[in-house]
């Protein structure tokens, strides 16, 4: 099984250091939770892993199955199995959900292979069904006019169809009602059982209790200041992030 590792990763934007010397591994089937106060650098870290051009590491390595990918374009990282589910996925006016997924799947096609439209649609409808989405979703413009919950569902849909090896979820639970949260939890559990490595940024106790993560990582001021088991999340909830302002290993 694969592994995604960060080794002494540092990021800056202008003079501003966003992430400093962060290291951890995510194994296939592993589920790790990243917590931290607002502005701690959680979203920046996720974007850097996905290859956002504004978040390029100036030191350290990102390794995907032992291959350094710092210089890989976002599309190459995606095709090699990294998926970022955005906190606020952006609108793509006029681009339908089906078109987006078709194009993304086509982009993954090995050279010389012909895209099989029929089996794509079979899979597409099956994935829609498993997320309780109806077929009218196929023709909706991506994220345009979607409610918060619909946006998150659409991100999950993409995960099901693109089958990444590692998923980075930026507050997938924010703005979700109880039912939707249950659906997210179940979907993530299923993916994890199938061997997907998951890095989850969340504040939701419900989701954590349901998923029972392998570890909780605390990011504060751009540095990993704490790591431990699920009990760490409980501690954060009880006592806040202040106590993690300085490095401390649990």
């Amino acid at each position, binding site marked *: 099984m694969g592994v995604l590792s960060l080794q002494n990763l540092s990021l800056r934007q202008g003079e501003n250091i966003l992430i400093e010397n962060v290291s951890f591994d995510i194994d296939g089937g592993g589920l790790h939770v990243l917590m931290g106060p607002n502005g701690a650098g959680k979203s920046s870290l996720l974007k850097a892993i996905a290859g956002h051009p504004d978040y390029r590491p100036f030191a350290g390595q990102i390794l995907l199955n032992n291959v350094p990918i710092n210089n890989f374009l976002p599309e190459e990282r995606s095709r090699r199995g990294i998926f970022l589910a955005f906190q606020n996925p952006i609108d793509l006016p006029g681009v*339908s959900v089906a078109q987006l997924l078709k194009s993304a799947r086509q982009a993954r096609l090995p050279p010389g292979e012909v895209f099989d439209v029929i089996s794509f649609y079979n899979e597409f409808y099956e994935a829609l069904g498993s997320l309780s989405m109806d077929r009218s979703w196929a023709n909706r413009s991506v994220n345009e006019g979607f409610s918060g919950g619909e946006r998150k569902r659409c991100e999950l849909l993409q995960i099901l169809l693109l089958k990444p090896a590692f998923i980075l979820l930026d507050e997938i639970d924010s703005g979700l009602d109880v039912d939707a949260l249950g659906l997210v939890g179940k979907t993530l559990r299923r993916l994890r059982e199938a061997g997907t490595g998951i890095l989850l940024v969340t504040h939701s106790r419900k989701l954590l209790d349901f998923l029972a993560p392998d570890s909780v990582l605390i990011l504060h001021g751009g540095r990993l200041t704490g790591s431990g088991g699920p009990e760490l999340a409980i501690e954060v909830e009880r006592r806040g992030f202040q106590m993690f302002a300085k490095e401390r290993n649990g």
Partner: protein
Amino acid sequence: MDNGSPDSDFFYRTDYAHDVGRGLSEQTVRHISRLKGEPGWLLSFRLKSLEIFQKLAMPDWAPLKKEDLDYGNIRYYLAHEQFPKRNWEEVPEEVKRTFDRLGVPEKERKFLAGVEAQFDSEMAYANLKEDLIRQGVIFVSSSEGLRDHEEIFRPYFGTLVSSSDNLFAALNGAAFSGGSFIYIPPDVKVAQPLQAYFRINAEQFGQFERTLIIVGENAEVIYLEGCTAPRFETTTLHAAVVEVFALAGAKVQYVTVQNWSDNVYNLVTKRAKAFEDAEIRWIDCNIGSRLTMKYPALLLAGERARGEVLSISVAHNGQRQDTGARAIHLAPRTSSQLIAKSLSIGNGAATYRGKIFLAPSADHCRSHSRCDALLLGEEAISQTFPEIHCQGEGCTVEHEASVSKISDEQLFYLRSRGLDERGALGLMVNGFFSDLIREFPMEYGVELKRLIEMEMDDIGSGESVP
């Protein structure tokens, strides 16, 4: 539809039986008219048009001055014969090869009710399905229309677009050749489209077709035209005039996919008149040419007439698409909808000029216009000049406009799904045009998407490996 596939840039050497030489004079005009065996009234029309052409100037707002083109260096008439063949096998070899390569005979078999193919100055091939001929439908070249159906042709010809309308309408009036003549008898509904292919083959040449479409009461027709030319270094001129008449209750759709090569000046006057309860739709797509100036017009002359102009234009590096629409409401309860979407790439410039006029006699009318521009690149240009004059009572007139860019976040989103930059831009651009592309006949829609994606080649690679 293959007008505009990458393979449209090819050229077979051709020897013409008829070449009136360079430059336009009274002598050339007389020569063209004599070759076609035209009646005296038409020769007078041509000569009068020539006189107007010599006097007229371009309007101040135009992106082209009269003297920008070297009229003395253009060839005004190049043809093998004056009248088209009905049988594909009889078409001259190099002409046939050209249209074969553009897929014309194949398309005809697949989904068209009739086909015409103009090669330089004349229609080389024209054919209409038997059952439509039996129903009285006429689909011939304009020269044949005049020769065989003068009684229908003459009362309409030149009444919507007069030669004094603009410089290039005058030039067309003097030198016109080719184009379609269509007559649909009352109540006949032609289910499959009629298609005309316009091919410019020669260098330093002017194509001046003239199309006249008359759709009888409660009749229906869809006309498609596609335009291509090989790429030359020299200037080529395309100055067409199109007049469409939709009689009471008639429905007409006129669909253009223009993909001229970059050396073509495309200066076209298109106008349609709708009588009571008639409906006209101009669906216009301009992808090619150096400069296009084209503003399809709707003359809503009968009560409850409806008109629509849907236009797509793409201006890539070095191109200027100066397009738009006009709606002239003359009768009560008429309605118009003008929707324009343009994409400017690199230093390409897209201009929209909209003119909506509601006469005092046009009460309780509705007009809605929207124009959206998408810019790709820092130097891309978009301009909008809407003009609205409302004198009718109880009218509702709306105009909306927007300019947008594809944001870095949208690009990153798509790239993080595995699309490369070009693919991401292509998807966004097709998304931008998607609601209009849906209005094109399906075979065209597919091709159009591909053509637009090909335009993405013009974009410099922005984001690269860190």
